[in-house]
């Protein structure tokens, strides 16, 4: 084998020469007009895709809003009914103990008279005790 040795293969000028384009490798000249046309076509396709996606997004948003409105109109009466039922039940539970208090408040004669008599007895007893203490201390 009388080809170049590995060291020779690797030296930088050889590397440069090896990587250089050969005449047979050169590409045909690019068609600038074709590039511009492809870019324009791509842009219009992109614009069409943008418009389509925007339309789809709008349609989806409208459907979502419609579904929300229907759901709300269906659920609202049920929710109101449930809330009213719960409030009524709570009121009924509170009314039972409250009715006893209210009944006493409506007929106050016996308890108030009893309280009055008790207060009077306490006051009389207190006055009697003070008189006895005063008599003992002065005698």
């Amino acid at each position: 084998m009388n080809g170049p040795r590995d060291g020779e293969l690797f030296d930088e000028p050889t590397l440069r020469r090896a990587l250089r384009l050969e005449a047979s490798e050169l590409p045909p000249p690019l068609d600038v007009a074709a590039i511009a046309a492809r870019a324009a076509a791509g842009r219009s396709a992109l614009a069409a895709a943008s418009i389509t996606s925007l339309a789809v997004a709008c349609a989806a948003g409208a459907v979502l809003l419609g579904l929300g409105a229907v759901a709300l109109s269906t659920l609202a009466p049920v929710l109101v009914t449930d809330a009213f039922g719960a409030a009524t039940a709570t009121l009924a539970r509170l009314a039972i103990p409250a009715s006893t208090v209210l009944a006493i408040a409506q007929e106050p004669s016996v308890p108030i008279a009893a309280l009055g008599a008790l207060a009077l007895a306490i006051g009389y007893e207190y006055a009697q005790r003070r008189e006895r203490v005063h008599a003992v201390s002065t005698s």
Partner: protein
Amino acid sequence: MATSVALRSFSPAMATTAPVTFAEAVRDHQDEVFGVALRITGDREAAPDVTSSTFLKAYRAFDRYDPSRPLRHWLLRIATNEAISHIRTRARELRHRADVDAASTVPDTAAVPEQESIARESRARIRSAVTGLPELYRVVIVLRYFNELTVDEIAQVTGRPASTVGVQLLRGRALLRRALEGAP
């Protein structure tokens, strides 16, 4: 969009910016862009497509081009990215394809003088070794030895720090040397 859209190309020799049309940019740089595509992909069939898509992207993005930077580097950056993208896609396809038919190039059987044949064989070995390098090193080796960019210029094109490019060039050359020593 007109094909004569004006780009302003940086000319280091004059240290001024000179407006160039897109058509001029294509004319001036298409061989170099094609070369980058060919040397990075190692695929004669794919290189024209990579070149074409490079200029297509350049055409679409010309308004984002920074005229204070060299047009050549901007185009090489796009070409490098396109070539890398191509080789990644091709690698994915090859991984998924069970019946990979060896897409080897048909050797030129035309009679050539012995010296020329040896030189051609050496070039083929080197190109094959470059194509076999990992993508990371292949890009810097191609930009250094095909495009003859400096380390700083490679850093600009690839967006990697210059120190990293220096290290990658050293490693790439070491891998290349190993590949050439190991080649029959």
